[in-house]
């Protein structure tokens, strides 16, 4: 119980840090978002002082209130789910935009990451079990895929499968001409079809890391005494591999899963941009290119929140599968 509370307390601190960062960043930065937006507007014509105060109101930077008052105001607004109005998608609110794009991202990244994790664990387990086999020698190749930037791999896949062989669509999240969002098979099939290439990109570029980690842990675990004991008892090799070695070797990978989520999210933001996938990454870029600061902040918060939430979940799961962590606390 104490361990649980410690964990939760840590994530509360992390959340507070993210919120605070989000609040102070625009205030620390040399450029003033209001000035930047005004200079953009000024290129198109004269800007009246009213426009300035309107933008200040919109971004919430007009108030002459002391900074701590703004800070608590901001925290209250965030907890009420009020992120302001989006400029890029005017008149939609930031909350609406995020609500519309988040499911796409979670679906794509979530499924792709889980596939990649499971695949990596299974392959790494086999490679560690048969050290020196072709699969083991293949691992450096997969780690090379890891140093390939996500978006470049996406570009290459898109070039071959989209432009040259026309097997997969070039962009989008579903076929906007023949289907409409809803819970019917046409739409779901279309989503799967359009999501296959982005998901493949994420799997190819992240599976190597899981494989390597699992393989190395497997090698270490196999030199433990209880493996020798299991051999001596005459257990079947398959049983030793799965229930004796792999079960223990997988623990660091599970712990690493949470940490790596942040990287996966980062990589897929750019991947989404390449595929014009209607997820949160594309929305973030849209926000950046139209200087939509309230949307940017909202998206950053939501991404941080999801990563923190997933981390907490994995941490709790980890205490369930590894009793040692509970004993140590």
């Amino acid at each position, binding site marked *: 119980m104490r361990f649980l509370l410690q964990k939760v307390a840590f994530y509360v601190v992390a959340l507070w840090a993210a919120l605070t960062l989000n609040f102070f960043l625009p205030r620390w930065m040399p450029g003033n978002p209001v000035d930047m937006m005004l200079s953009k507007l000024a290129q198109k014509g004269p800007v009246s002082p009213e426009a300035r105060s309107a933008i200040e109101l919109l971004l919430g930077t007009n108030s002459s209130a002391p900074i701590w008052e703004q800070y608590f105001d901001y925290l209250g607004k965030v907890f009420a789910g009020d992120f302001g109005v989006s400029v890029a998608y005017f008149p939609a609110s930031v909350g609406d935009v995020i609500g519309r794009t988040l499911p796409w991202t979670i679906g794509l990244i979530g499924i792709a990451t889980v596939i990649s994790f499971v695949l990596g664990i299974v392959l790494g387990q086999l490679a560690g079990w048969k050290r020196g086999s072709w699969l083991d020698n293949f691992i450096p190749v997969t780690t090379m895929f890891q140093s390939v930037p996500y978006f470049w791999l996406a570009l290459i896949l898109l070039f071959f499968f989209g432009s040259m062989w026309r097997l997969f669509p070039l962009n989008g999240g579903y076929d906007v001409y023949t289907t409409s969002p809803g819970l019917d098979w046409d739409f779901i099939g279309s989503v799967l079809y359009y999501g296959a290439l982005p998901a493949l990109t994420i799997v190819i570029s992240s599976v190597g890391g899981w494989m390597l980690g699992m393989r190395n842990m497997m090698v270490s675990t196999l030199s433990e005494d209880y493996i020798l004991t299991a051999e001596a008892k005459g257990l079947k090799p398959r049983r030793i591999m799965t229930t004796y070695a792999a079960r223990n070797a997988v623990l660091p990978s599970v712990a690493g899963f949470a940490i790596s989520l942040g990287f996966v999210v980062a990589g897929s933001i750019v991947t989404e941009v390449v595929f014009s996938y209607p997820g949160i990454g594309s929305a973030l870029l849209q926000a950046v*290119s139209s200087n939509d600061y309230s949307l940017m902040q909202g998206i950053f918060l939501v991404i941080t929140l999801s990563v923190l939430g997933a981390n907490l979940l994995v941490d709790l799961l980890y205490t369930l599968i590894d009793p040692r962590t509970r004993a140590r606390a």
Partner: protein
Amino acid sequence: MTTTTQDPALAAGAATAVSRRVTLPPMTPKLAAGLLLGGAITLFGLLGPLFVGNPSTVNNIGLSGPGNGFILGTTQTGQDVFAQLAYATRGSLTIGLIVGVLTLFLSAFFGIVGAYAGGWLDESFSLFSNVMLVIPGLPLIIIISSYVPDKSILLVALVLAITGWAGSARVLRGFTLSLRNRDYVAAARVSGEKPWRVLGVEILPNLIPLLASQAVFAVIFAILGEAGLSFLGLGASGSFTWGTMLYYAQNGLALRLGAWWWFVPPGLLIALFGAALSLINFSIDEIINPKLRNQTRATRKKWNLSKSQLKQVVKEDEL
């Protein structure tokens, strides 16, 4: 350690001599390939720009394939892709180097010093790096760089370092924690060595392989991060990096027009350089964890054992 009876300078010399012998990885094919590949790309970045023309010169033969005096063809506006590639290599490597060094210092400070000092300092450093670790880096970088319209390479590197040091700090902390409780460190402390000396002479040499591997990771991370950032159009302004090349290629519809000579080389160089660094890291990893040392078939063949003996070895190995 009986350093108290010895001349300190002599002891320090002995310590570095020992560490030097231990930290130099054996020259395996993996390491050789990594060094060769990485060295070649670095050399290209260092010397390449001296031999090519101005990468921004506009020409009237746009989007032509390799050949006709252009080794890698031209961009949409007729710029020499090969010249751009040379400058981009220099730019990306510069960012990688700066971030690698910065990350090394930040992670060593927060990881090693905190873990060695212990107490509230360790608690707060550890909390700080864990919080930094769970806050997703790239979105934060995107936000920060979108506030600053004109960025120098140095600023981009700084932002990448600030968002990327936490993972290394955590790894270093874990290793330092196990080191500081070893007997020889306790002995050094009891014999009256000053804290900075224990840290610098007793603990740090043992951390060198780990530091090296973390620095290599930081360089890969930085180059990938910068490429992603530039690809989104948020990189350093007015500079050539692999990321900006890809950005212009994407915006120039290189993909749709089939201009592979434009978008393949920069990405390939990122991948090759990353692979080279990973190969080097494999060798460093084998120093940190001897269990991972090469036991592949190729190595075993060199032992000149008979088939049955080899089978025996494989069996023992798999136990």
